[in-house]
């Protein structure tokens, strides 16, 4: 039984790695920002969870497991939040999904134009395509 645990753990870790690899392929192959964020974030969270679970099994009951659990909790907070921030940034900079833009988006576009219009400095370049680091843009 104790011999089997590391093997199971290793299997889980490898499964996690494969999941992350799938996510990476998804980021390359998917058509627009939102689907790419989707592919990246889901597989990242899931893959990391699987890997950490596997490592816990390998480590057994020890301080290392405790650290791994803390790291997992951290990932569970940061990964979704980062994905949300990315999607939010893409949304507020007017990226429309591949399947066509929503009505709510067009409305908020008009609102945003009214609100942020005067603030945009003369040096504001053309909007960059692709995901942006959230927040930094807004200071």
């Amino acid at each position, binding site marked *: 039984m104790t011999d089997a645990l590391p093997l199971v753990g290793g299997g889980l870790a490898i499964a996690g790695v494969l999941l992350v690899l799938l996510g990476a392929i998804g980021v390359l192959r998917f058509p627009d920002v939102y689907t790419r964020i989707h592919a990246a974030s889901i597989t990242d969270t899931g893959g990391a969870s699987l890997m950490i679970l596997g490592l816990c099994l390998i480590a057994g009951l020890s301080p290392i497991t405790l650290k791994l659990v803390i790291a997992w909790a*951290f990932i569970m907070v*940061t990964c979704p939040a980062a994905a949300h921030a990315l999607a939010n940034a893409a949304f*507020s900079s007017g990226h429309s999904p591949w399947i066509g833009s929503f009505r709510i988006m067009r409305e908020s576009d008009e609102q945003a134009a009214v*609100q942020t219009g005067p603030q945009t400095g003369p*040096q504001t*370049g*053309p909007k*960059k395509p692709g995901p942006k680091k959230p927040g930094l843009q*807004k*200071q």
Partner: protein
Amino acid sequence: MSGAISFLDANLAIDLALLAMLVVLAAAIAMTRKLLAAILLMGVYSLVSAVWLVVMDAPDVAFTEAVVGAGVSTIVLLGAILLTRAEAEKTGWGRLIAPALIAVATGALLVYAALDLPSFGDPTSPANAYVGRTYLEVASRDTGAANVVTAVLASYRGFDTLGETTVIFAAGVGVALALGFGERAAPASRLMAGATGDHNVVLRVAAKLLIPIIALFAFYVQFHGDLGPGGGFQAGVILAVAVILHALVFGLRETMTAVKPSFARGVAALGVLLYSGIGVVCIVNGGGFLDYGHLFTAEIEAQIPPGLLGDPGATHHWGQHFGIFFIELGVLFTVAATMVTIFYGFAGRSPGGEAKL
């Protein structure tokens, strides 16, 4: 011994695979004209080299590379390209010849010399057999720190670390001189302040959850430094990241009322003063500069309860313990405060404002 050999081979395979990834990343950075892509790739480059450093048994360096290269450097680089043109100009092929020649000439000399070095991983090479080996033999005994890297960093080569702390301080001084303290920070934009705040409620909640944990982790790294990887520098950067995260989510103005720029500047200077002050205290008590053995006079040392750090039976080097503790604290102060100062400088530079000429 055969077990050790196969262990090595697996390591070598991972090592070379990671290096190959680094080469690909460097080539990608050289070829891309998109600045954002170049910067993010550089973050990835740092992260992959951090993984490589772990494989090379250098967890302390890996830790630093991860927090600095993938963390602070990326943030600072992103801050510098805010609202500039996102693409670099194309360089003509003719212009690449001279740089390529310089790089190839340098590389040729390096390869020519590197092939003369002892084999990779050779324990009897001069580099590994002389001073490095001595540290492994004496460091724990001399300083009581289990992490030899910390012992060498803070004690044997403590003067280098004082110089390193000073360099960081100098960078803070330089950035503040060039960019100011963020006094020109734009008022928090409505998006951040909450006029359309429902967009950011997730971020705010996550940040509120994370910031205390990050700060706590910084102190863990700080005080765990002589037992495991970590120390004042890594802890300082992590602490600064907590402040930077606050600024990113809640707006720079908000953060500046919590951590005032003048406060950050003062703490940065105090950190270096604390570090060099420890050196002077050692002189006053009859030792040499940074000679922690003389940090306490004999009377004070006699008053330290033997069980202060638990384990009353063991012999302790109180001077070394507290010397390392205090100078790491100085490093923490300077690094954290300087990183915050640098961030304020970059973030507070409103991209519309022209320099006064």
